């Protein structure tokens, strides 16, 4: 899968394909986390691979954040995220999520 942006960082390889269903980990570690709370535990679909970027959780601790981690855009159906969502089935929210926050959805 071609990333949207090529970066020069040494990076770990991407694990997910476009269209693949993924679940956001339900973890709650402390620190500078770029995975919003409201999306943890939810299932979405990989929309694209943005590229690989230094881990922000490490950068916030003054470390280099390497190897860089694949960053995806994941599309979630609003009705899956908010069971009482009032709007059509097709409404969606798309979020950038780093690979270490994702696992294969069964």
């Amino acid at each position, binding site marked *: 899968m071609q990333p*949207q*942006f090529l970066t020069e960082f040494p990076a770990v390889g991407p694990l997910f394909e476009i269209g693949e269903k993924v679940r956001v980990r339900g973890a709650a570690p402390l620190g500078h986390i*770029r*995975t*919003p709370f*409201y*999306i943890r535990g939810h299932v979405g679909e990989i929309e694209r691979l*943005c*590229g690989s*970027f230094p881990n*922000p959780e490490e950068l916030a601790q003054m470390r280099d954040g390497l190897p860089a981690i694949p*960053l995806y*855009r994941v*599309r979630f159906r*609003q009705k899956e*995220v*908010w069971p009482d*969502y*009032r*709007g*059509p089935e*097709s*409404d*969606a*929210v*798309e*979020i*950038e*999520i*780093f690979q270490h926050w994702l696992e294969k959805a069964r």
Partner: protein
Amino acid sequence: MSDQGRYRPFSYFQLMEVSLRELLVEKGILTEDAISEEVAAMRARTPERGARVVARAWADEGYKRRLLANGTAACEELGLEIPGLRLLVVENTPQVHNAIVCTLCSCYPRVLLGIPPDWYKSRNYRSRMVREPRSVLKEFGLQLGDGVAIRVHDSTADMRYLVLPMRPAGTEGWDEARLAGLVTRDCMIGVAVPRVG
């Protein structure tokens, strides 16, 4: 009534900002001039930069394709200085309306749109835009039918987003400068759509 100019003690974060700034200057890491120049440069950027990009995309189908494929390269093609910007452009169609939010902080394509409006940074917009986007858009005066899917983009990490609105009817034959005049900041955040007249 505005209470601008009235004395109020600094808040915790204002005090922290002043202390940090003064320390950086004292230690010679930054100069007062460098800070003023950066603030001036920030103020000088306006949504007209983004509007130029949108107008070109409306006028030139090939440019539009390049913009959607790689927003960063397409901005550079127009000669815009966009240091560090990784831009994803999301296109509105009759079936899909896009809108941008940053629920975690206030990420915003500043180099294309300038300083974000206060409401973009408010807790109200940031929390409700992902939860009930249709109600929020309605408050902005934008009512979308159920036949139009809303895609909200939560700008959480290294990408920045720009909405490419639909070119309004009745603008056939307009040149790019005139088209750009229709493209407001709010259209490029996705809380409005361009209107003629």
